[in-house]
């Protein structure tokens, strides 16, 4: 049995608990589009997790070929982007610079995934859906002023540095590559911690529900970047972060929907 099965099973359990609470949330807000999109997205994520676990239990040695769960994962990203867009409906203004920067970052990530795995079809399909979610998240963060100007500049610089480090680690010889990889992992987890702290603060603060929503989505998106860019123990460490992000997103969405 692959060692990743247990953390993946815990991730699926967390997703199942989030889904259970989300269904109760839906029963209180039956006609709310944000909640329906959210429940739909979490169901897709859970199904994708379950499929992956079954595959890993039955065929632990083989790398999974293109399968239906990848469509489920892509659909969940689009549904989450739809949920976020519905939260910020009617507020999208001129945020082209942020969206262009984020799209470039997403494209660079997809190219790195393809370079690393060679699975261009899966990476392009998932990358398109993921890139859309990433752009929506960044746009919504900008709209609600989730980050200060200095923080945006730092985030953009760190994202650029991350892409450079990851590209260099793929091209560098073994020892130097491992060092560069460790550097990029440290950077990934540092940004993840920054978003997580910001999201928890926004959740605890009075008002600013939209800030909490956008930051919790940022935690989730960044946890996915971390998951897709790491392997081994670092990947296993990122899985609980992704599960925690789901819980943060649900809490933020509950506050946003049920605010008076």
């Amino acid at each position, binding site marked *: 049995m692959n060692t990743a099965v247990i953390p993946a099973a815990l991730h699926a359990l967390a997703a199942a608990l989030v889904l259970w609470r989300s269904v109760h949330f839906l029963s209180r807000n039956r*006609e709310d*589009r944000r909640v*329906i*999109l959210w429940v*739909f*997205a979490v*169901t*897709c994520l859970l*199904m*994708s997790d*379950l*499929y992956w676990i*079954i*595959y890993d*239990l*039955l*065929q632990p040695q083989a790398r999974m*070929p*293109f*399968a*239906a*769960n990848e*469509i*489920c994962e*892509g*659909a*969940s990203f*689009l*549904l989450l*982007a*739809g949920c976020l867009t519905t939260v910020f409906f009617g507020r999208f203004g001129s945020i082209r610079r942020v969206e262009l920067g984020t799209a470039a970052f997403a494209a660079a990530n997809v190219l790195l995934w393809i370079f690393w795995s060679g699975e261009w079809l899966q990476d392009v399909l998932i990358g398109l859906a993921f890139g859309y979610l990433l752009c929506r998240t960044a746009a919504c963060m900008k709209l609600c002023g989730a980050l200060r100007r200095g923080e945006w500049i730092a985030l953009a610089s760190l994202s650029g540095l991350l892409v450079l480090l990851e590209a260099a680690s793929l091209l560098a010889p073994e020892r130097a590559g491992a060092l560069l990889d460790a550097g990029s992992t440290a950077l990934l987890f540092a940004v993840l911690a920054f978003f997580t702290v910001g999201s928890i603060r926004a959740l605890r603060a009075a008002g600013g529900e939209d800030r909490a929503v956008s930051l919790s989505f940022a935690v989730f998106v960044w946890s996915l970047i971390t998951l897709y860019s790491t392997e081994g123990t670092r990947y296993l460490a990122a899985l609980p972060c992704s599960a925690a992000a789901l819980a943060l997103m649900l809490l933020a969405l509950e506050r946003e929907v049920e605010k008076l």
Partner: protein
Amino acid sequence: MIYAENILLCIGIPLLLTLLFLRDNARRFVLGFLLGMAACLLAAYVSGFLDLVSGMGQENTAVFLSPVMEELMKLLPLLAFLLLFRPEDGELLQTAIGIGVGFATFENCCNMLTAGAASLSHILVRSLAVGVMHVVSILALTLGLALTKRVRMLSFPCVLGAYSLSATFHAMYNLLVSEPGTSRWIGYALPLLTALLLYGAYRRLRV
């Protein structure tokens, strides 16, 4: 080798004629049944083509790619019906069940002609597992579509979400039964258990 097109003609022509004498839900169901059988044949063509071009091998294509294709072929007529005729939830469900049952029936007929119908256990597995699975997967798809239609949210992500759920459920079944042992029995039980769960959801949502 079997001639699947001939089987489709043999079962389909009498059903096609009955359409002239049926009305409303009965007509929708029979039309769905015919579309389901045609979808099964098309899915077999496309899966055969994918087997050739992907180089994944017949077994891997059946486990990983066929569910994606088969569910897509079931989705397309249902989506066309939904977008062109804007049916009520009940009408959509009638057509969907017809498509699912037609698909399962045609697949079972072809399988029996290939593998024979002498073994009762094989026949029971085909009917209770594979047959029910096709109905359950399209029911899940339809419940998703009906729910999103109800709140006027029938968009690309929602359709993709509903489709991906049904395709992943189907793929999960194929994956479980592809390995011998406990996983195979879990796979066989999965469609029936899910059918019961969906019945609960159906009663609750009153689609």
